[in-house]
Each structure stands twice: as C-alpha cells, then as structure tokens.
C-alpha cells in the first residue's frame, strides 16, 4: 500500500521515463528554444514567450485521475487553458479582438498619400496561393488517407501562413475546423512573423541588385484630410464586406479599431484598444496557442511539413512582392525601390522597419519607411481579403 501511495505521489517523475514522457522532454526543449528566442534574441517576445510557456504547461505530466495535464483537464472538467481555447480560439474571438487593437494602431495616412502602394499588398499574397497549390500535391504524401476535403482545407490554412498574419491564419484554420493541426499552423504563423528580420533580408538580397536597393523614392510630408481618414475604414468595410463576406469579421474589426483611432472623439477608447486590449489579448492568445502544442499533436511528420510549407509560403510572399515591383519598374518612369514590394506582407510594422533598415545599409540617406509602411498596411488588408477569398472559394469548390 505504501509503495502504491509513493508511486502515485511521484507519478509525474515516473511518467518522464516512459515513451510519452520522453516526447514531453522534447517539447520542453522546443518550448525552451521559443522562450530563448523571445528573451535573448528579442524575436516577438510578447508572442513567443507566452507560446513557449503555454507549451511547457500543456506538456506537464498528466494528473492520474484525469489522464491529462491539469491545465488542460478533460471535457467534463476543463483546465484553464482549455477554457481559454474554447472561449477565444475555437470561436475566433481572440483574432478578431487583436484586429481591433491592430486597427487602432494603424495610420493609413501614407497609403492615402500614395495609394499606388496598395497593389504591393495584393502582389505579396502570391506566396499564399503558390503554397496552397504545392500543399495540395504534398499533403496526400505525408497524411495518408487524407480525403479531398482535408487536403483543400489544410492547404488553405498552410498557404495563409505566408501572409505573416497570425489572426487571419487562425481564422482560416478555425473556419475549416482543423483542430488537430491548430498547433503547428499557429506556431508556424507566429514564429515566422517573429522571424521577419531573419527570413526577409536574404530573399530580398537574392532578388535585387545593390543599385536597385539604392533607388530613392519621393515622399512629401503632408497631412491627410480628417474626413478622408474617417471615411476610409467605412468604405473598406463596405467594399470588402459586400464582395468577400467571409472577410467581414476580420476587416470589420480592423476598420472598427481604425475608426476609433481616427474619429477624434474616442481618444480614451483608442488608447485602450492600442494598449490594454492589445496586451491582454496577446497574453491570452499566446499562452493558449502554446497550450495546443501537446507532444502527441506536435511531434508528427505533418508538423514538419506544415512548418516547411509555411516557410515556403513566407519566402514566396516576399519574393512575389519584390518581383512585382521589378515588373512595375519596367513600365514606370519613377522607379520603385523593389524592396518595398516585400513589405506587402502583413507583419506590421516589422516588415516596413526591416525594409528601411536594409535601405539604410546600402544608402545611409535613403528614406523609404513611408512607402514601406504604405505597402505594409496594404498587406494587412490584402491578407485579410486573401483569407476571405480562400475560405469562400474552397467552401464552394468542396461542394462540387
């Protein structure tokens, strides 16, 4: 009896020496790497640290009575991280709330000054669709028995990773009920978002010459009319909501946040959205995503495929934007610095800052931040529209 009591009391220790226990140790190492990247390398610490810690919590040895980690619990008695998942991820609430906060942070003035930059936000979605096609070919090889429906749904979510837009990726994955793949998809989306300064520069350098990177672009510091700044979020919501209804929750939340910012009479709400709301949801979102990284769901071959294809999508989105800019330069009198095209992804404002930093490396007096910011906010819009389009089209095609 005493031996049984001891065994039960230290079941967590003995668990670590079993097969699943060894997988748990591997997950602790992965979680440690994420936390290390957050603290030591300063890669999106607000996201990677909660994700890493959530992964540790979700992989703690199971409680004997429920055969699951206490933070996750069971269907009858869910733990706090399962409660958060059901409340914020499974019903798409957290991504939408994050977009209200992001909308309140975005200043569309540079885009309203130079609207031609908006097309980079479309061109940089090329990687999403290229990866979608490649995924359709590769998924059946790695996920045996995957039917057409799973292939198309999973390929959609993998493709969207390339937009470097975590909330939209979660939105698409949720819509297609890819619960089993949520961990690798969300971890890939948020990890690659944080690795923008690592992933984008080599791709841009490979596709451009130094002379191209030194191209200077005119920008006149002018203020937009307040009326235009107020009307813009309303018009965008109406156009996107009518043409691509599936994008309405995300674009609506983004533009609602922006309208709060620009209306001029809700400064307190605007600041709350930019700070308290953004911080609170980021904390909850990160740790909840981390909690999906249970060893049995994460240490699989399809996780490697999703991570690899996610990287592919990210690289091709960057390349799509750069090549589109080079194509435009064939016809434009005033040349565009092709690096601006790479800022057409959604990682705002990190991508724009990376482009400005690269521009300064080749020419200390080159200032392209405003144009890059315009492309970057356009990428935010483009990735939401692309997410809505892919949901709409794949849902329709699945019925054929």
């Amino acid at each position, binding site marked *: 009896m005493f031996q049984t009591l001891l065994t039960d009391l230290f079941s967590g220790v003995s668990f670590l020496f079993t097969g699943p226990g060894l997988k748990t140790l591997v997950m602790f190492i992965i979680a440690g790497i994420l936390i290390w990247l957050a603290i030591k390398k300063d890669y999106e610490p607000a996201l990677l640290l909660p994700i890493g810690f959530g992964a540790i919590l979700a992989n703690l040895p199971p409680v004997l009575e429920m055969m699951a980690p206490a933070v996750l619990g069971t269907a009858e008695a869910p733990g706090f991280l399962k409660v958060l998942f059901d409340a914020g991820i499974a019903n798409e609430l957290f991504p939408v709330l994050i977009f209200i906060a992001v909308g309140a942070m975005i*200043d569309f003035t540079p885009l*309203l000054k130079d*609207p031609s930059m908006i*097309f980079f936000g479309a061109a940089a979605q090329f990687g999403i669709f290229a990866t979608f096609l490649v995924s359709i070919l590769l998924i059946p090889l790695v996920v045996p028995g995957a039917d057409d429906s799973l292939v198309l749904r999973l390929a959609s979510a993998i493709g969207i990773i390339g937009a470097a837009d975590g909330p939209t990726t979660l939105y698409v994955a949720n819509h297609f009920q890819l619960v089993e793949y949520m961990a690798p998809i969300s971890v890939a989306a948020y990890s690659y978002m944080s690795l923008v300064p690592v992933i984008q520069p080599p791709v841009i350098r490979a596709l451009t010459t130094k002379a191209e990177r030194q191209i200077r672009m005119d920008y006149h510091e002018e203020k937009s009319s*307040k*009326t*235009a700044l107020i009307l813009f979020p309303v018009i965008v919501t109406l*156009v996107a909501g009518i043409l691509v209804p599936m994008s309405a929750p995300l674009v609506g939340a983004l533009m609602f946040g922006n309208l709060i910012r*620009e209306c001029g009479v809700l400064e307190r709400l605007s600041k709350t959205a930019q700070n308290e709301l953004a911080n609170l949801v980021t904390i909850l979102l990160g740790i909840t995503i981390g909690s999906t990284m249970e060893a049995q769901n994460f240490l699989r071959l399809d996780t490697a495929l999703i991570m690899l294809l996610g990287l592919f999508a990210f690289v091709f989105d960057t390349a799509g934007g750069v090549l589109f800019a080079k194509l435009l330069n064939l016809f434009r009198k005033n040349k565009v610095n092709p690096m601006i095209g790479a800022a057409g992804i959604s990682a705002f404002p990190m991508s724009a800052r990376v482009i400005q930093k690269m521009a300064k490396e080749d020419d200390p007096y080159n200032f392209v931040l405003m144009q890059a910011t315009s492309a970057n906010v356009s990428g935010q819009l483009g990735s939401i529209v692309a997410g809505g389009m892919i949901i709409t089209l794949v849902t329709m095609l699945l019925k054929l």
Partner: protein
Amino acid sequence: MSVFVKGLIATGLGLAGVFLVLALFFVAIKLLQKVTPEGKGEAQDG
C-alpha cells in the same frame, strides 16, 4: 474534377479577387483625394 484542378481554380480566382478588391480600395482612395483634398477637411493631428 480533381483536387489539383480545384486548387488551380481557387488560385486563379483568389489572386484575381485580391487584386480586384484592392484595386477598388485604390479607386476609393483616389475618389477620397478628389472629394476631400488637403486643407479642405480638418488636418490630422498625428
């Protein structure tokens, strides 16, 4: 219809759709520039 053909259709229409919607945003901004030129509306503070 094979799953790859469905993928091709989604890719073509998807990319075209993204460009179309963003082109409409472009037109909307151009119209806003005409309707509310600088100095006509109240200037933005930040």
